[in-house]
């Protein structure tokens, strides 16, 4: 079994239901996110549109976070999920430095690394991840990538040529796919970040990090 995620960006409407469901399910502290939806506005008024891109851990087949973790706090489990043992984590932030997707953060309450686990605890009880359940338009598709009859495999087959991953050049082989993703959504360098114009005004730097 190789669990994976696919988000159909044509369907996502940026309601952030997945984000909230994740926060509640996993008790994610304020100022941190296991899953978040990025908004990118494209075009010039009046020809503008807003794109929505849910971002979470990619559960890479070749996960840099797993490789750099000095104590195996980050580890693969049998179903392909890259899980985290917060009791073992020493908080070195090596994984934060290694993850090319910025998916790992230091939990300000436990002072350990944390990230999306595809709700491994729910899956162990045969339940879907919280974000999948909460999505009102079924934009989040979750399942076994090794089963050709699973929803996710069928979706990938049906959208051949329009399925992408983030930063494929990193060689991490993400198990998280997007349908309808483009450079603007998935490449962090392809859009402007103007200080003072974000919806999160003046919150661009949080004191979560190390000593500097």
């Amino acid at each position: 079994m190789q669990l994976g995620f696919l988000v159909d960006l044509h369907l996502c409407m940026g309601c952030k239901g997945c984000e909230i469901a994740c926060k509640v399910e996993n008790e994610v502290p304020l100022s941190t996110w296991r899953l978040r939806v990025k908004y990118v506005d494209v075009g010039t008024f009046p020809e503008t549109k807003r794109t929505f891109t849910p971002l979470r851990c990619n559960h890479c087949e070749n996960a840099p976070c797993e490789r750099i973790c000095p104590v195996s706090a980050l580890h693969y489990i049998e179903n392909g999920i890259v899980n985290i043992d917060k009791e073992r984590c020493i908080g070195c932030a090596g994984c934060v430095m290694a993850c090319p997707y910025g998916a790992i953060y230091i939990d300000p309450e436990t002072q350990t690394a944390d990230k999306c686990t595809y709700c491994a605890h729910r899956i162990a009880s045969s339940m879907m991840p919280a974000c999948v359940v909460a999505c009102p338009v079924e934009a989040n598709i979750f399942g076994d990538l090794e089963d050709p009859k699973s929803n996710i495999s069928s979706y990938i087959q049906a959208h051949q040529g329009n399925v992408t991953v983030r930063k494929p050049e990193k060689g991490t082989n993400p198990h998280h796919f997007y349908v309808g993703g483009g450079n603007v959504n998935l490449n962090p360098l392809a859009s402007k970040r103007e200080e003072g114009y974000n919806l999160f005004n003046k919150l661009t730097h949080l004191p979560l990090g190390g000593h500097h």
Partner: protein
Amino acid sequence: MVHETLAATNAVVTLDVALPDVFWGWYVTMNMWAKSIGTGLIFMLFLLLKKNASEMNALRTPAIIVSFVMMNVFLLFTLADLHQPFRMWHIFFYPHWTSAITVGAWMATIFVGLEFVMMAAMIRKDKCLLTKDANGFFDKLLFWVTLLAIPVTLYTAGIMAEATARELWQMPTESVQMILAATLSGSAAIILLGGSKLSDETKQFFGAVLGLSALMAFIIYMSEYVFGSMKAEEVTAILAYVKGDGEYATMFWIGQWVAYILPMLLIALARVSKSNSLLSLAAILAIAGLWVVKHVWLVIPQLLPLS
């Protein structure tokens, strides 16, 4: 922060999570800087042993003490930088050997242990339990400690290479820079420690090591500065922080001048004028400047948004 935006798309991020602050900050800079001096002194002691063993007598004890202290500074800052420092023991009981952090922690611990034995042998020369010839014992152990100093110096470059998200830190460039940082700061430290105990010829030799280390490190930084951005868009974006009006441009150039350019000039002058004062000044500048250089290179890749 914009590099690939097309005027046609005019894409603007209007909502994303707040960018995390710098995770590996000046504690990690202290870690790299102190380790460079600690292992660099060992390399220089070994060079001195091979070049002119008779001058070792005055330097064995002070050099091993300074190296030991700097290695402990390195370990202290490594520990302090952990968000869960009291779980450090997990590295030894749950080691994950693909991680350069694990390998480095083990090697550095063994290295510091051996240094302790060498230091104890020199301090308690007359009562040394291991051997009656403390100097001979020290010199024999120095060979193995020098061998171990190579991976201890390099493992931080391994960590940087494993930091897949930070495109600026490439192997083998970082390995070379780590070794050069050790030879630069080690030669500088031994010039300062040697003082009048070293002959002028030996001091000029270490001055040459310092000058050449500075030259090679400077060439590598300048190569990255000029050509790095021609390969990868992430490197281009990161180097923008040290170019033009970049946030770290001033600090970058202060580091390059203080660590490399000024010491090279001073060493050239010292060779012409046979001045020990100029050599000492070059050594002080190199050690101070190295901290700045390391800090800038550590921080700038962390400023880049990843999402």
